[in-house]
């Protein structure tokens, strides 16, 4: 069963692009700055969960994923699913920068009529491979996309970013079972393991550790990296098994909730959802920008 032949787009961003580590680090901080700016305009948003995965988004979008921003429905593109949909505010500037939609859209983020909502809507925004918002669904959706790729003979990868609190959802483990049962080596889960969920430390609410052991017991290849070390992330993604291999991979990215700004690192729960005062905003921006002078 093969999918319909679709011409390769003129411009394809291939896997393993030689973006420098310095540039990937700079991009991650730029995602933080844009997040602060967009939340400031909208009046509310998720800072610290976005900050914890800024390096992951940077490495995926500026190095790892095979993308065709001019042809967002190109069937052979790699898929990216933002399981932790509440950090869409960090994805919007990336998609705009890559040319999926006009940068001007960013200015309407969170406003009535804007396609850019707090959680991503695949029907509203080019470049969003699937909607999210209800935690625990997207790994299952990723299993479906990986199965479809197999049936259609396409070599794309499907990458699903989940939070660590999200792993408390039972459906995630149904999906984990299905992925190894159906031998989906074309499926990659990335856990932004920042150690916190909405109301406190993840494993105080419900222990999810030892994560690597649990994933391996479910038939996955599991590895652990420092989720703020762009070099380590790039290395882990560069060495993914080929898409026609038979064991799904989970990269557990150990991260810090609120990473990159002293105030949000100190009180990650307070900045899970909120809006900085102008003074706090300016101080946070100054702290990030000082790293790049």
């Amino acid at each position, binding site marked *: 069963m093969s999918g319909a032949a679709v011409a390769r787009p003129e411009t394809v961003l291939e896997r393993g692009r030689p973006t420098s580590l310095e540039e990937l680090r700079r991009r991650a901080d730029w995602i933080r700055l844009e997040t602060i700016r967009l939340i400031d305009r909208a009046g509310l948003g998720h800072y610290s969960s976005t900050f914890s995965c800024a390096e992951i988004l940077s490495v995926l979008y500026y190095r790892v994923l095979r993308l065709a921003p001019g042809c967002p429905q190109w069937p052979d593109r790699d898929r990216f699913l933002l399981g932790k949909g509440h950090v869409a505010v960090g994805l919007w500037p990336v998609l705009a920068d890559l040319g999926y939609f006009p940068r001007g859209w960013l200015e309407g983020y969170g406003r009535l009529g804007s396609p850019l909502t707090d959680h991503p809507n695949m*029907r509203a925004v080019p470049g969003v491979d699937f*909607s999210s918002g209800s935690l625990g669904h997207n790994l*299952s959706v990723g*299993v479906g*996309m990986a*199965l*479809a790729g197999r*049936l259609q003979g396409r070599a794309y990868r499907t990458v699903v970013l989940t939070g660590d609190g999200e792993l408390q959802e039972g*459906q995630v483990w149904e999906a984990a079972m299905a992925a190894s049962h159906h031998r989906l080596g074309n499926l990659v889960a990335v856990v932004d393991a920042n150690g916190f969920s909405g109301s406190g430390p993840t494993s105080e609410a419900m222990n999810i550790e030892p994560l690597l052991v649990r994933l391996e017991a479910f038939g996955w290849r599991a590895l652990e990296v420092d989720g703020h070390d762009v070099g380590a992330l790039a290395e882990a993604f560069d060495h993914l098994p080929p898409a026609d291999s038979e064991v799904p991979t989970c990269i557990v990215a150990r991260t810090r909730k609120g990473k990159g700004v002293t105030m949000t690192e100190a009180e990650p729960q307070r900045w899970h959802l909120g809006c900085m005062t102008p003074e706090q905003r300016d101080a946070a921006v100054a702290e990030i920008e000082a790293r790049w002078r």
Partner: protein
Amino acid sequence: MSVGPAPEMENVFSEQDARRARQRAVGEELLRLVEERGDVVVLSADMGAVMSDLRQRHPERYIELGIAETNTVSVAAGMAACGLIPYVVSMGPFGIIKCAEQLRSDVAYPRLPVRFVARLSGLAMGFFGTTHHAVEDIAIARSITNLTVVAPCDERSTQALIRSTVEHPGPVFYRISEGADEVYPDPPEIPPGSFVTVREGRDATVIATGLGVGAAVGAARLLEAEGIEVRVLDAAYLKPLDEAAIVRAGSETGAILTVEEHNVIGGLGTAVAEVLARHRVPARLAIHGLPDADLEVAAPAALLEHYGLTSTGVAARVRRLLAA
């Protein structure tokens, strides 16, 4: 305490029973679609026995996901987002009530062409306990935006409705009645969103869905002998709803009885009442279904008899409605 006789029932996990069952239409039609089209896949949450022919002939197009209904729905959504048309075959009692959020968020909200085929709806598994009754599903399904809700009333309408909706760009929920009386000698043509006038009449209208249609036709025959002419409408589509047919029935016959194997709250009767009220149609309405109470547990035929979802039960309700 009187105990009824042990009736014949389908063993849903037996391939022999599945082949022998009166309701084979789902498996046969899905097999035909898989053989005709390259984009149809069938997903099962441990419903393999129903699909044994498909599983043997096209194993790559049959995807088993085990007893994990919610995961199955989201997996189907992912496949649909990649250009496939997935049919999820599930047991009614563990269908929409268990997967409502996945259906809403992953399937209906993004308007993906997933087909959710709920076999064994209503009281079809009534023998196994109240956990196995599926009598809330119309209420849930109708309130999910973008979801088309279809309820075949016999084998041929099952085939016809599955076939005629294959190209529908959004999601479809099929509520499959089991062991229903034959209504259509040939597969009917049912335009999207339309009721079918199964029988004309001017004294009253029975609007029925699923196996209620067969009971309504039987009731109309009984009442004909008494000089009462009953119009019978097959509510094959529960959403979109054929509002024009409801208004006509109310205006032309003055009395409507709805019949469904579903809780009287939130089902076909509720939908018809909303339409009559909105259009200010001054017709009498009675809703015949399952009471909003703890239901009895027994073989389906015994339950249908008990709750009056039979020709004689429907005929009695029509007489009461006309006498009111």
